[in-house]
């Protein structure tokens, strides 16, 4: 049992717009941290710049609200220098995937033990309404009055392409779903990407409408759980099956299909092919949006490896102080 409550992680009065998805997410984060039980003073919350990156100011932990795009890089140094800290990195879609895209992929590739939160509202809110790297093609915004002429990133694809070992998704308004993936992200050792689908009430209202409330989710989302069959629908009457190289939606009872025929979710599978298919569903393709922990595979972490290498080399080398280091050189004496 954790000795902390959500209150122990709360600070200040958030300044986000009323109805902003960030409010919901913040409450879930406080709750998740309390349940995880790491002390606030052993927790660092590090963000970049953007609406969602204001978040550290509402945390009673250590933290930094840094500069645009660099949160993953700054969090990397923080974690490597002090692996005892639980480090949470908070970014929006612009911060994390546009200006910070390089740091995002490399933090995943290195597999640094960071909890990387991507609050995705598919818009630049703080700069008042420009399209972001997750806005769909044709998206009309202040900087694209005739619609964008570029395709968006799909965060899971970037994460997987960078050899990421953990990817989960939740809707900001779904507190239990969010708390669950945040705890799973903390428990996963290595870089853990959590995509939070979050609404911007001012500049991109309704972007996640299909899954933003409970009713929508019951029709348009699938909660994936490791070891459970991939069932969804108001009465779990639909399921997913493999179909050649792809997936298909089937209805239980039709064509003699029973629950036994339904694909069972394997978040621990090293091969990410089917996990990626799950993660990419729901883009107006007749498939539900996958929520929950989609990929969760163990792998050596960078910060552990750095510490282990220092210990190993220290054992094999005969010099451990600056004075001893000097003596390893070719030295001559002038008398």
């Amino acid at each position, binding site marked *: 049992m954790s000795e902390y409550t959500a209150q122990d992680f709360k600070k*200040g009065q958030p300044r986000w717009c009323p109805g902003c998805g960030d409010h919901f997410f913040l409450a879930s984060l406080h709750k998740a941290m309390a349940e995880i039980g790491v*002390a*606030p*003073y*052993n927790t*660092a*919350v*590090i963000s970049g*710049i953007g609406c969602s990156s204001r978040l*550290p*100011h509402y*945390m*009673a*932990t*250590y*933290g*930094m*609200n*840094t*500069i645009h795009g*660099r949160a993953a*890089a*700054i*969090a*990397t*140094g*923080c*974690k*490597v*220098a*002090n692996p*005892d*800290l639980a480090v949470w990195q908070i970014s929006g879609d612009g911060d994390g995937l546009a200006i910070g895209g*390089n*740091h995002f992929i*490399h933090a995943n590739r290195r597999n640094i033990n960071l909890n990387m939160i991507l609050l995705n509202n598919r818009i630049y809110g703080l700069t008042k309404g420009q399209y972001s790297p997750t806005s769909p093609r044709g998206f009309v915004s202040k900087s694209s009055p005739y619609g964008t002429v570029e395709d968006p990133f799909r965060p899971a694809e970037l994460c997987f392409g960078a050899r990421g070992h953990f990817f989960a998704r939740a809707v900001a308004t779904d507190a239990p779903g969010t708390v669950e993936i945040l705890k799973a992200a903390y428990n996963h050792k290595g870089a853990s990407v959590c995509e939070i689908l979050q609404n911007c009430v001012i500049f991109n209202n309704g972007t996640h409408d299909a899954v933003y409330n409970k009713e929508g989710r019951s029709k348009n989302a699938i909660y994936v759980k490791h070891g459970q069959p991939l069932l969804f629908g108001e009465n779990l009457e639909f399921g997913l099956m493999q179909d050649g190289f792809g997936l298909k939606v089937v209805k239980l009872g039709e064509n003699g299909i029973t629950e036994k025929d339904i694909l069972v979710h394997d978040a621990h599978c090293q091969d990410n092919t089917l996990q990626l298919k799950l993660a990419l569903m729901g883009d107006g393709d007749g498939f539900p949006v996958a929520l929950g922990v989609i990929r969760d595979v163990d792998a050596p972490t960078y910060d552990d490896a*750095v510490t282990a*290498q*220092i210990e190993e*080399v*220290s054992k*094999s*080398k005969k*010099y*451990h*102080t*600056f*004075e001893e*280091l*000097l003596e390893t*050189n*070719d*030295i*001559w*004496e*002038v*008398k």
Partner: protein
Amino acid sequence: MTIKELDQVVVRFSGDSGDGMQLAGNIFSTVSATVGNSISTFPDYPADIRAPQGSLTGVSGFQVHIGAGKVYTPGDLCDVLVAMNAAALKTQLKYAKKDATIIIDTDAFQKSDLEKAAFKTDDPLAEMGVDADRVIACPLTQMVKDALADSGMDTKSVLKCRNMFALGLVCWLFSRDLDIAFNFLRDKFAKKPELAEANIKVIQAGYDYGHNTHSSAANVYRIESKVKEPGRYMDITGNKATAYGFMAAAQKAGLKLYLGSYPITPATDVLHELSKHKSLGVTTVQCEDEIAGCASSVGASFAGALAVTSTSGPGICLKSEAMNLAVIMELPLVVLDVQRGGPATGLPTKSEQTDLLQVLFGRNGESPMPVIAARHPVDCFDAAYEACKMALEHMTPVVLLTDAFVANGSAAFKLPNLDEYPAINPPYVPEELKGTWTPYMRAENGTRYWAVPGREGFCHILGGLEKDSQTGAISTAPENHDLMTRLRKQKIDNIKVPDLEVLGDEADADLLIVGFGGTYGHLRAAMDELRAAGKKVAMAHFKFINPLPANTSEVLKKYNKVVVAEQNMGQLAAFLRMKVDGFVPYQFNQVKGQPFVVSELVSAFDEILNK
């Protein structure tokens, strides 16, 4: 045989990049330093990655200056030039004095070698106007093969020993004790004794060849040691000394050393050096880019490490964003900028002092940052130590400027005794402030306290947004921003740096020579020459540029004529004019990517004296 007694001599080893000229030069300088000579060395790398063998662009040089008294530079022109092939003679002769002794390997002056080196005739010496009497021409390659005929080594390995024959010959010219070289090689190749013995055999062969065949033809030199400073020494490059300074400071401060970096010439050797020493607990992270190199260091600093980032050239532009974050968050950070030729990619392997104004001012907003510039390879150690101490004790990023010349050059380094170095005491937040502390509460000298994550009762949020001076919360209040801007400036201005030292004719100089950083040796040598010629000259050289030494104005205004000499278009001069009212100096500016040439400085300063 004539024995020439010299005060100083410059030897330049040159050949293909793969000919091992640096090793030969290093051994020669170590041997000389061991007998008490002063040394200064500088490598001259080709710009090409691996140019074709024997080609003009593939020539690399290594210059060694040894002196009976103190030497400050690797020397302008050499007294002895070793040219291992025709291309080396072609490209390097311009670095030799008119009466220099030239050693060539005739086996590498064959028809195809001459063609590759773009000689038009089959007499390269005549074509270059070299007096054959000054040349020691020997079939060096063949003699190396003969010496190692019974070694059982393959041809490739045998040819790799050519540099040792040249070294042996040079050791003979300077009557060097070969035992010191032998010991050096036995140490260096401790794990491959057969290789050590092969090299030793070839050095001896080179020495004997000189002794037997040229004893009547060439000069033999003697350089006595006049100013011996007893002690234990090692040879050190500027980059290595910088890395050592960081490790020494980390140990003294009791902190973990963290380097976030990205490979870039000529700073990369610092990353290489620090990456080796994990047994001292050093953590190095080779990041995805320069931005992350600096940004991750800011993160490491927040987490409580001594954080350092290293770069050069365009890298400093990319780092300026995160450097600025460290300014507003008031976290310690050392940014090493090994200056090279610019702009953009510029001249990556060459040396300039063209980043000064960038590191002083090249960030958005009012962003004051201390700047320290190392003077010579050995000084990099102290400068790095001082930069770390300043960053940690004043909670600020500090720029340490070196340059390609200082970074790659080497000199004898007297092993430091850390007990004699000042303690490093970061302003950790006192436990008794628990409950009342806020992040921008300041100690007496204006420094913010450091609360490292993991300490209960001191949770706080820093960031790139302006903060209220009292509460530490985000603030856009006009008066508060004005106050915080002033507090950040005052904090830097409060840093104590040593007074500017005036060398030479301090009392009555007609000309004061002013410079900063890596030009110290050349400017000092120029001053010494002018004074030897009876001129009244003094020198004031800046190591601490921000904040400036307290006596700066007094010194600069004391002399009738002042010349600011720098390897840029006048950046220090501009800064001093901004800081010292009514200061109008003469300027000497050169941006060639090469170190100053002392003789050019002397004539330029003489001209100013005669005005």
